[in-house]
C-alpha cells in the first residue's frame, strides 16, 4: 500500500488546523435563539431519603423535580450475566439520593448564574441515612444498603477456576499481596455539555451533546422519553476529550430533553469542573488480594485472585456496573502462559457516583495488580523481575494463542518487546548506577510492566455480556462529489483520535483521492450510519475497515465506468496515483466522477446504477479483538526523606500492528502515559466517613502537568493482525494502562533495600515516607 498520503504516512492532523486557530465548535460555543441555561440542585448528602422539597411559588415554573417529569423512564443498564442485580437511575432523584451530586432539581434561567440563584432558593428536607463509601465495608453483612430490595450491595459476582487446587502442591514459592487503586475522576479539558431543543417542523428532539457515542445516546434517550428513535437526533460537535466519560448517557441529557419540549425553548447545561469532579466522571477504583505461585524453575505456575470493584450507586448506561469487574477475570493472566488459575470478582454498590469506563478500562488496575505482584514474586525468588517474565511470557511461535482465560491473542512477539525495552532503558547501566550511591541521597529504581490491549472486540464478546448494545457490522457511507472529492460518513466519533486524518489516509490508499479532497463527516445521527461509537480502541479497526470496504466498492464502480470510457476490459484497468490506468490510456478518478454526475450521456452501458454513493460494511475476520501490547520501562529517583518521586527516564516498546499514522499513534501514547502518571502518582478522589468527596476543585484533585510528565521514548514493532483489513490493531488506550505498574515497580525497586513496598495508587509522598517508616519499625522489632 501507499505511503505519501496513505497508510503509514506521518501526516499532520487535518483537524488541528481549526483547533489550533480556536475555530473548533464545542457545545459551549453554540448559542441558539431563545436558549436558556440550566443549573441543577444536587444532593449534598451521600445517602438520604427526601422528605420534602420546598420551592418558592414565585419560581415554581422554572424549577423541575422528579414528580414533574411525567412519562420519563429511568436509565437502566442491565447485563444478561447470571445473578446481575439491576439498578434504576432516575433522571431526577425519586424518594432517595444515593450519592453526593445526584440530581434533585433542574432550574432554568436566562443565564447560568441566575439559574444557580434559583438553585439556592430551593430547600430540601432530608432524612439522612447511614452511607457506605468503602467497597470492602459494603460487602460486609449489615452494611447500609444502597438498593434495599437487593438484600446486599452486590451487582454481580463472577468466578473462574481452571484446575487451581492442583497448583498449590506443585508450587515452590508464592507471594500474596493486597493492592488498591484509588477512585479517580476523568478530566477531559471540556466537561460534558448538552443543548436540547425541539424542532416543531420535523417534530423531532435535537440533542447536541459532548458525546463520543451519539447513536447510543439516541437509543437511550428514545427509550427513557418514550419517543420513536426517528424523532430523536443526536449531534456531537467538536468534543474536547472523551476517555470513556463521554460514552455515558447522562441523567442531565434525559432531563433537558424532557424539559425543552415542555418549555418550548432550547436549553443548555454545561458541566463545570466541580460537577465533573464530585458527581460526573468517577472511575478506576479496584481492590485485589492476589497470590502468585512459581514453580522451582521460577516459572509462573498459578494466579489466585479476589478482586473487588467499587461500582458506585448506579449501573451507568450503556456499559453497566460490571464493565470493570466483569473483565478482570479474563484480563488478569496478562501476557503469560501458566497452567492454573482462579479468580473471583465482585461489583459492589456504594454511596458514590457510578463508576465509568476510563481509557484502559479495567486493564490499568489489573496490570497494576499483576505486574506489581510479579515483581514481588521475583524478589521472593531472588531473581530479576525481567527474568521471571521471560520464563513465562507467551512465545511468538505459540501465536495465535488462546490463554488460560480463553482470550485469543492474535499475533506478536512479547519477549522481543521486553528485550527491546531492556536495551532502550539501559537496564545494565541503571543497575550499575544503583550500586554507586546518589550524591543527593535519593534512591534510583527501575521497573517494567507489560500488558495487552484488546481492541475492537465485537459481537461474540458483547453478546455474551448482554449490555444495552452489542456491536455488529460497522458501516461507512462514501460518495464522490460531482467535482471528484470524496465524502466519508461514519457513525463513530473523533475527539482527539485524529480520525479525520487517518480515515482519509485509508481512503487515499484505495482511491488515490488527494488527502485534502477527502472530508470525514461524523457526529450526527441524521447524517451518519448507525454505530455503537468510539470506545474500546475500536475505530481504526472498525471504522477503518468500513471505510476500506466502502472505498473498495467505490473503486470497483469507478473502474467499471472508466473501463467503458477507456474502451478497456474491467480486468485491465486499475487505480494508480489518482488515475484510472488502462492499456490504452489513463483518466483521473475525479474525471470519472464528473462524468457520472455531470455528463451521464457519455456513460457506458455496463455500470452499477447505484452510482458513486454507497454504504460499505465491515466486521473483522475474527471478532474477539486485536491485541496490541507493550512493555513500559521506568527509571525513578525517590527521595526517602520527603517521599518525592522524579521520573528520570521512560521508554515504551509497543506493537500496534500496521500503523496508519505513526505520529498520531505516538500522540495517543503520550497522552495516555500522562494519564497513567496521574493514576500512579497524583490522582485520587477521597471520601470522608459520610461519603463526602474530599476534592471538588483541581487544587485538591491533582493532575500531572507538563513538568510532571517526562519525555517518553516510543519504539514500534509492527506485527500485523491476521484478522483486520490491513493488519492494524487498536492502540488508543494502551498508554494509560502500564504507567502505574511500571512506576510502582520502579519505586519498589528503589526502596527494596529499605524493606518498603508500595501497593496502592496513587503513590503519594506521604505513603512513601510512611511505608519506609513502618519498614524501619518492622526491622527494629525483628
Amino acid at each position, binding site marked *: 500500500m501507499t505511503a505519501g498520503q496513505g497508510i503509514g504516512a506521518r501526516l499532520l492532523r487535518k483537524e488541528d488546523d481549526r483547533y489550533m486557530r480556536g475555530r473548533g465548535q464545542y457545545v459551549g460555543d453554540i448559542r441558539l435563539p431563545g436558549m436558556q441555561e440550566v443549573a441543577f440542585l444536587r444532593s449534598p448528602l451521600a445517602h438520604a431519603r427526601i422528605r420534602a422539597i420546598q420551592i418558592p411559588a414565585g419560581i415554581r415554573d422554572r424549577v423541575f423535580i422528579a414528580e414533574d417529569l411525567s412519562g420519563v423512564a429511568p436509565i437502566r443498564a442491565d447485563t444478561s450475566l447470571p445473578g446481575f442485580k439491576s439498578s434504576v437511575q432516575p433522571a431526577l432523584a425519586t424518594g432517595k439520593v444515593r450519592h453526593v451530586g445526584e440530581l434533585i432539581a433542574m432550574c432554568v434561567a436566562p*443565564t*447560568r*448564574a441566575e439559574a*444557580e*440563584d434559583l438553585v*439556592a432558593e430551593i430547600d430540601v428536607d432530608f432524612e439522612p441515612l447511614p452511607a457506605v463509601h468503602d467497597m470492602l465495608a459494603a460487602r460486609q453483612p449489615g452494611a447500609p444498603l444502597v438498593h434495599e430490595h437487593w438484600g446486599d450491595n452486590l451487582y454481580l459476582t463472577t468466578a473462574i477456576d481452571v484446575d487451581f487446587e492442583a497448583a498449590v502442591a506443585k508450587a515452590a514459592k508464592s507471594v500474596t499481596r493486597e493492592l488498591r487503586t484509588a477512585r479517580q475522576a476523568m478530566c477531559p479539558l471540556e466537561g460534558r455539555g448538552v443543548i436540547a431543543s425541539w424542532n416543531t417542523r420535523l417534530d423531532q428532539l435535537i440533542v447536541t451533546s459532548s458525546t463520543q457515542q451519539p447513536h447510543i445516546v439516541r437509543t437511550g434517550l428514545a427509550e427513557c422519553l418514550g419517543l420513536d428513535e426517528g424523532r430523536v437526533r443526536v449531534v456531537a460537535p467538536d468534543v474536547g476529550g472523551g476517555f470513556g466519560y463521554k460514552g455515558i448517557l447522562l441523567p442531565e441529557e434525559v432531563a433537558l430533553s424532557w424539559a425543552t419540549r415542555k418549555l418550548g425553548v432550547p436549553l443548555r447545561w454545561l458541566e*463545570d469542573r*466541580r460537577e465533573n469532579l464530585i458527581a460526573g466522571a468517577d472511575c478506576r477504583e479496584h481492590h485485589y488480594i492476589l497470590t502468585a505461585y512459581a514453580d522451582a524453575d521460577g516459572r509462573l505456575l498459578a494466579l489466585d485472585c479476589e478482586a473487588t470493584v467499587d461500582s458506585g450507586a448506579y449501573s451507568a448506561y450503556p456499559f453497566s456496573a460490571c464493565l470493570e469487574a466483569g473483565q478482570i477475570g479474563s484480563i488478569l493472566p496478562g501476557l503469560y502462559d501458566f497452567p492454573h488459575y482462579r479468580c473471583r470478582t465482585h461489583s459492589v454498590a456504594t454511596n458514590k457516583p457510578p463508576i465509568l469506563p476510563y481509557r484502559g478500562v479495567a486493564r490499568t488496575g489489573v496490570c497494576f495488580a499483576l505486574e506489581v505482584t510479579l515483581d514481588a514474586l521475583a524478589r521472593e525468588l531472588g531473581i530479576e523481575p525481567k527474568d521471571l517474565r521471560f520464563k513465562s511470557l507467551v512465545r511468538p511461535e505459540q501465536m495465535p494463542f488462546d490463554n488460560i482465560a480463553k482470550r485469543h491473542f492474535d499475533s506478536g512477539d512479547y519477549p522481543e518487546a521486553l528485550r527491546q525495552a531492556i536495551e532502550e532503558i539501559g537496564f545494565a547501566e541503571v543497575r550499575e548506577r544503583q550500586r554507586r550511591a546518589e550524591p543527593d541521597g535519593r534512591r534510583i529504581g527501575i521497573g517494567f510492566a507489560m500488558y495487552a490491549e484488546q481492541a475492537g472486540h465485537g459481537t461474540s464478546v458483547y453478546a455474551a455480556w448482554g449490555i444495552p448494545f452489542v456491536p455488529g457490522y460497522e458501516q461507512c457511507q462514501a460518495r464522490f462529489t460531482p467535482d471528484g472529492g470524496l465524502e466519508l460518513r461514519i457513525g463513530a466519533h473523533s475527539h482527539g483520535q485524529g480520525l479525520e486524518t487517518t480515515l482519509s489516509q485509508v481512503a487515499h490508499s484505495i482511491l488515490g483521492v488527494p488527502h485534502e479532497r477527502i472530508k470525514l463527516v461524523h457526529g450526527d445521527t441524521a447524517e451518519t450510519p448507525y454505530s455503537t461509537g468510539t470506545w474500546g480502541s475500536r475505530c481504526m479497526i472498525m471504522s477503518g475497515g468500513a471505510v476500506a470496504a466502502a472505498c473498495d466498492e467505490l473503486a470497483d464502480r469507478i473502474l467499471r465506468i472508466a473501463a467503458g470510457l477507456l474502451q478497456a476490459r474491467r480486468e485491465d484497468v486499475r487505480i494508480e496515483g489518482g488515475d484510472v490506468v488502462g492499456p490504452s490510456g489513463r483518466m483521473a478518478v475525479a474525471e470519472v466522477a464528473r462524468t457520472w454526475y455531470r455528463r451521464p450521456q457519455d456513460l457506458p452501458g455496463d455500470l452499477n446504477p447505484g452510482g458513486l454513493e454507497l454504504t460499505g460494511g465491515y466486521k473483522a475476520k475474527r471478532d474477539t479483538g486485536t491485541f496490541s501490547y507493550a512493555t513500559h520501562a521506568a527509571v525513578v529517583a525517590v527521595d526517602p*526523606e*520527603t517521599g*518525592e518521586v522524579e521520573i528520570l527516564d521512560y521508554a515504551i516498546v509497543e506493537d500496534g500492528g500496521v500503523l496508519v499514522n505513526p505520529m498520531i499513534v505516538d500522540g495517543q501514547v503520550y497522552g495516555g502515559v500522562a494519564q497513567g502518571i496521574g493514576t500512579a502518582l*497524583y490522582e485520587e478522589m477521597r471520601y470522608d466517613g459520610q461519603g463526602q468527596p474530599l476534592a471538588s*476543585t483541581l*487544587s485538591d484533585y*491533582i493532575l*500531572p*502537568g*507538563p*513538568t*510532571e510528565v517526562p519525555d517518553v521514548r516510543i519504539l514500534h514493532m509492527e506485527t500485523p493482525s491476521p484478522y483486520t483489513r490491513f493488519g492494524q490493531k487498536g492502540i488508543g488506550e494502551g498508554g494509560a494502562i502500564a504507567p502505574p505498574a511500571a512506576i510502582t515497580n520502579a519505586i519498589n525497586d528503589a526502596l527494596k533495600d529499605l524493606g518498603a513496598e508500595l501497593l496502592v495508587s496513587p503513590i*503519594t*509522598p*506521604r505513603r512513601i*515516607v*510512611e511505608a519506609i*517508616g513502618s519498614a524501619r519499625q518492622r526491622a527494629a522489632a525483628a
Partner: protein
Amino acid sequence: MKPAPFDYLRPQTVEEAVRLLATTPDAKVLAGGQTLGPMLNLRLAQPAVLVDIGRIAELAAVTDDKDAVMIGATVTHAAIEDGRTPDPTGGFLPQVARGIAYRAVRTRGTIGGSLAHADPAADWLSALTALGAEIAIAGVRSSRRVPLSAFVRGAMETELGADELITGIRIRKLSSRARFGYHKICRKTGEFAEAIGVVVDDPERAYFCAVAGATGGRPLVMETRAAPGSGSVTVEDARQLLKGAHFTGDDYELTLHAAALHRAYQRAYAA
C-alpha cells in the same frame, strides 16, 4: 459555578478606595482576583460590592529610599519574577516569585492580595516574614505600618479591618554579604506548598531569621538568633527547632517541614 450577584466599583485613588470600603456595607477588595475569583465562583464569598483596586496608580508604585524598598500592594508576582521592580534582596524575591503558581496566575496575582488573604501555604507570607517586612495599611481615619509577623493572626486571619487597605510592603535592603535559602515542597509545579523553609542571614546588619511556613497557621519563626555556621544544621536540628517553635502536625508533616528547613539552610550556606 458562577458568582452570586454583586456590584462593581473602581476607585482611582487610595483615599477614594478606603472611603468606599468604610461607607459601603459588605464590600470586598478585588486585586488580582486569583483567590477571590474562584471564591466568588464557588459562592464561598458573596460580597454585595467589589472594590477593584487595579487602577489605583499609587498602589502599583515601587519606591526606593536609602534603607528599604516599598513595594506597592498591586505589584504582581510576575513583575517581581521578571525583575521589573527594584529588588532590595539581591535575587531572593524573584526566586520566591518564580515558584508561585503558574505564569498565568503570576501575571495577575498581587503581593498585597496574597498577604491580605494570608493563606498559611502562600509563598510571600513565609518569605516576607523571614525578611522582617512591614506591611503598610491605610484606613479612612489613619494609616499605619505593622510588622508582618504581627499582622498575621492565624490561618487566613489578619489585623486588617474590613474598611482597611494594604497599600504596600516595606522590605529592608539586604547587604551584598547576605545569604538566603528558600525551599518549598509541593506536590507539583504550581501547587501551594506542603512545607516551606526559609533562612535569611545578613551579617552586615546582624540580622538572622529562620522560618517554617505552610504549617497550617501563621509562619513559625525559629527560636534561634545566631547564624549557625555553614552546613552545620542537621535534619535532626531542624526537627528540634520546629518542636521548639511549637510545630503541630503528625510525624510525616514534621518530617517534611524538617526537610524543608534543613534544605533552606543548605541552600543559604552552599558555597
